[in-house]
């Protein structure tokens, strides 16, 4: 591994061109080692969650933590799946998430188009509002949101919670989508219009297809927000209408020190759909980048 005399190696696998091949190689080895070590540290809690979810109850009691689970069992998962309250919470979460995502992404998309492609009075104020709203912490408003839903008879209701979620998701999604729409050069649309498209035709045929990754990103953000949210759900939901995070908390509080395996199984089950979604769309997100479509 001579680093002083070897001629510049023609390794071009790196994404970043090597400016100094001798030094670059050493740096890369160090960086790779770092990736493995830090990756393992960051991954450990997830490993522990899965391993414990599959760990027989008898082994939880051992004085030494079981670092490698040699007797995986599905008893905890089955336990959770036979819990009626889990299924009822799943139903609430699924409904809240589905409605919130559809509504929020659609509305945010229209707003982002307006902000990105039009100049109109109040545009600056709208952008400022979008930014400022994201700064408002949930706890700064949940008292009055609780009173509001209480007054409308929407406490413990899917619609009440969904309304609050849409309010959180829309501003952030506007910001995400505005970025993506800004990234599609207007020249593409103008070229289509010169070729005979109407303005709407140009937008729908040229720009919209390029916004797939942006819409997917926005939708994922929306799904994750609604599925994972705990604070507002804790404040406005109850009376048997719990979301999954609330269910997990109740379940965890009741079973700590007696059924860690069940708690971990529940945690994995809640996390699983989100993770799968994330990983499925990951490759799709990489496609459709517009860089290079117009060379200036």
């Amino acid at each position, binding site marked *: 591994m001579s680093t002083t005399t070897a001629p510049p190696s023609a390794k071009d696998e790196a994404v970043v061109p090597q400016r100094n091949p001798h030094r670059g190689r050493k740096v890369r080895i160090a960086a790779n080692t770092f990736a493995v070590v830090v990756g393992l540290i960051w991954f450990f809690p997830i490993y522990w969650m899965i391993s414990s979810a599959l760990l027989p109850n008898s082994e939880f009691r051992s004085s030494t933590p079981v670092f490698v689970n040699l007797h995986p069992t599905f008893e905890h998962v089955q336990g959770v799946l036979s819990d009626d309250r889990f299924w009822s919470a799943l139903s609430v979460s699924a409904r809240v998430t589905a409605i919130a995502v559809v509504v929020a992404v659609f509305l945010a998309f229209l707003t982002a188009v307006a902000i990105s492609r039009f100049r109109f009075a109040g545009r600056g104020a709208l952008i400022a509002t979008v930014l400022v709203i994201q700064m408002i912490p949930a706890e700064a408003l949940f008292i009055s949101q609780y009173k509001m839903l209480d007054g409308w008879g929407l406490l413990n209701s899917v619609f009440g919670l969904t309304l609050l979620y849409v309010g959180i998701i829309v501003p952030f999604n506007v910001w995400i989508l505005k970025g993506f729409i800004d990234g599609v*050069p207007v020249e593409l649309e103008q070229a289509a219009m010169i070729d005979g498209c109407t303005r709407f035709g140009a937008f729908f045929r040229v720009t919209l297809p390029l916004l797939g990754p942006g819409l997917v990103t926005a939708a994922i953000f929306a799904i994750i927000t609604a599925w994972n949210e705990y604070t507002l759900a804790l404040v406005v939901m109850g009376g048997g209408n719990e979301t999954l995070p609330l269910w997990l908390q109740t379940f965890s509080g009741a079973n700590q020190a007696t059924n860690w395996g069940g708690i971990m199984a529940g945690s994995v089950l809640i996390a699983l759909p989100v993770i799968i979604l994330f990983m499925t769309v990951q490759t799709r997100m990489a496609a459709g980048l517009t860089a290079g479509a117009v060379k200036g």
Partner: protein
Amino acid sequence: MASPAPVVRAKRPTPPTDDAPAPVVRNVKRRSALPYLLVLGAVVMVALALGYPLVRQFVLAFQEYGLAQSFGMPAEFVGLQNFQEVLSDPYTYEVFARSLIFCFVTAAVTMIIGVFFAFVMIRMSGWARTLIQTILLLVWSIPIVSSLTVWQLLFDTRFGAVNWVLERAVPWWQDDYNWLGQATGMLVIASIIVTWMSVPLVSFMAYSGLAQVPDEINEAAELDGANGWERFRFVTVPVIAPVLYLIGLLQIIWDLRVFTQIKILQDSGASLEDTDVLGTYIFRLGIGQGDFGMASATATIVLFLTVFVTLPYVYQLFKNDKEETA
């Protein structure tokens, strides 16, 4: 190398600006109602979900609104009495101080680790980057409530792996140390959890910012005799500064609003008095004790504090956006 993991490239909130979008020339001459129609739905929903509660909260903050009023008694306006009560209570200042310290320590640690990750990621091989990005993506995607349970298990007094390791690695570590039994231990755990789950987003965003630094400029600077530090200072930093601003803003907002982690750790045994942060304190006042007037007054102060803390950043974002599209 099969999947070169440009995962995050599509995820950045601010796509590339080096090919600056041409000035938008539409609608200069013709006033149209179209943009207003487009934003109408979003504006209505946000006004319902956030705008109305905001107004309602200002009103509540100036009212005597306790349990009696919740059961039908008309709420009386009491002027600044709620604020006076909140601001003359030393405990309020304790909660504020605790929240601010928690926020800035956690946000700073997260930023340092995340940005450092990004710098290392730029330099590693494809497979290593795929590995670490996949792991970070996993961590990022785990719901907070799920990861909280496993962290509680890890730090559990008797069954926890952390105590087990520390008892063997640190000679003076006491047996069965109860992390949640005292405020410092609990807040440290909360901070670790928040950092662990926030680093992925920070490093992704910083990485996509770094990946945008044009190689040509770097090479040109090198030819002109700039050394590593100078290239970093005068080429890399200016390009990624806006991205870092955005991440910093988000971290501060998110860490100041930390609620779930603290609330859940409190529920599993930590003392309330010494661990309350802004969110849990307001929750306790309002939802817990039914004192909506006091809770609203505190929440209003928190609101102004948040706006005050982050206004410079928002101004910067707003300005960047104007420059980009003007």
